């Protein structure tokens, strides 16, 4: 390496991704040598805003942290508050929450498959998956009354019931979704367009995945069986049998297969939950004033493990609220995946973790200096100099 490496800024505005995020790549020829992420461009001050709204108003604010995993965020929030209140929601509400959560997972994975196809230039697959995504969006609108922000969860249960007619319609929709996903998985296995761009790309070894705290499908594609739904069951997951999907490939195509198979699992979970939907109330009345206390709640969002922390002080508003979204957990492993790859693979590797930077950037978070572990020798001083010049 007698030639100096070249720095390529990537973002904050970049045509490959709709959300603003900045990555500084150092490249040697076509190979990426090091990556510096800089997050915080979509910081909206949500955590502070949560502190001066009531618990009921926060339901709708927290839902808007992320458009795609909106239900996962409210499930996590309501769980934390219900824990502080010491109430248990009715079994029917738990099952309805599970059905919505799994429909949301199907929606997210369809969306991701389309985006990944778009990233590798396979526009036909992108169009088809997004057309089929409409099926699940229509189902969610039918159940909840809205396509994106379902507003189904409330503290003490769910807001709407699932009637037998809706169950029938969901069954029909699930059949179509399952059949289509089977077809897409077959395409992914046979079509050289996909395997050439994704197989062996963005390697994350199991050891690194654990060391860098990867979450969700990214972790499971490295062969590690870890899923909050199975490890620490919440809502109705302890009563529903399902498999945790893992693949050993450690590359982008394994992440694709993990998501394809998770759709089949979700379909089975929803069918099982609809067959055994308990009778009874869908919500219980809870006081508006929440006693003093704190709680941590975990949810397996479609993108990975989501953690919420709530601290209350006996008023109608929370004292402190903290959200750790799955994408934030995946950024260190993302940097690991990018190093050693080609510049042309950057978009698909970043897309491979299913990033949601709106989730990530609720607070200013600069983690530039902690990335030392994968800086090559002699690079550190150079980077210091570069930064020093940038300040001027």
């Amino acid at each position: 390496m007698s030639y100096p490496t070249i720095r390529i800024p990537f973002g904050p505005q970049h045509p490959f991704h709709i959300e603003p995020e900045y990555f500084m790549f150092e490249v040697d020829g076509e190979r990426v040598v090091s990556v510096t992420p800089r997050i915080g461009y979509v910081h909206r001050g949500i955590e502070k805003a949560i502190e001066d709204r009531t618990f009921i108003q926060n339901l709708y604010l927290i839902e808007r942290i992320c458009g795609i995993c909106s239900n996962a965020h409210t499930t996590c929030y309501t769980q934390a508050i219900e824990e502080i209140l010491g109430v248990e929601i009715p079994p029917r509400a738990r099952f309805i929450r599970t059905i919505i959560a799994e429909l949301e997972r199907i929606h997210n994975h369809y969306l991701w498959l389309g985006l990944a196809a778009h990233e590798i230039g396979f526009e036909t697959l992108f169009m088809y998956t997004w057309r089929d995504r409409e099926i699940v969006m229509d189902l969610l609108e039918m159940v909840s009354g809205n396509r994106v922000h379902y507003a189904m969860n409330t503290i003490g249960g769910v807001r709407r019931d699932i009637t037998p007619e809706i169950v029938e319609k969901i069954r029909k929709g699930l059949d179509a979704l399952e059949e289509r996903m089977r077809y897409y998985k077959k395409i992914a296995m046979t079509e050289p367009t996909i395997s050439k761009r994704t197989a062996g790309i963005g390697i994350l070894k199991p050891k690194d995945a654990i060391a860098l705290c990867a979450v969700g499908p990214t972790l499971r594609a490295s062969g590690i069986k870890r899923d909050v739904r199975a490890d620490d069951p919440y809502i109705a997951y302890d009563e529903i049998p399902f498999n945790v999907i893992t693949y050993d490939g450690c590359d982008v195509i394994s992440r694709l297969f993990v998501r394809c198979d998770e759709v089949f699992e979700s379909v089975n979970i929803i069918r099982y939950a609809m067959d055994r939907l308990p009778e009874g109330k869908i919500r219980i009345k809870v006081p508006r004033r929440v006693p003093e206390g704190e709680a941590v709640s975990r949810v397996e969002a479609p993108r990975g493990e989501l953690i919420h922390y709530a601290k209350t002080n006996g008023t109608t508003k929370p004292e402190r609220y903290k959200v750790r979204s799955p994408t934030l957990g995946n950024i260190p492993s993302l940097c690991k995946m990018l190093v050693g790859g080609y510049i042309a693979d950057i978009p698909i590797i970043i897309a491979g973790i299913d990033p949601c930077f709106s989730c990530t950037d609720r607070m200013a978070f600069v983690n530039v200096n902690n990335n030392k572990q994968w800086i090559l020798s002699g690079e550190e001083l150079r980077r210091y100099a570069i930064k020093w010049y940038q300040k001027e």
Partner: protein
Amino acid sequence: MVRELLKHLLKRPATLKYPFEKRPPFKGFRGRPIWDMKRCTGCELCYKDCPSEAIEMIGKGLEAEFKHHLDRCLFCGQCEEVCPVNAITMTEEYELASYDRAEMIIEFKREEKASKNLSRSSKNV
């Protein structure tokens, strides 16, 4: 994949020609909320619970009137849910865009007679 593509040659497009063709919303869709002022008791619950301060209340109790700021509304349906007398309903209207924010303030007033009658009856009580 080629076979799938050829199959789709003969199919109709999956999209609708929107302004001319409309997809009716599903039953229970959360569209623009409307107030039934004959039922409203002015309890302030909808005004207090609104997460985006889209509901403005003028006056108190049985004389209260509402301004609904459509440009701030989230269509979450919390006002409908919390109303103790079911005075608020979410309609299925969804084409609510406008060029002017002033046009997006919708007023809900009590009829002159009705409000007088109500205030009189409340005095009697």
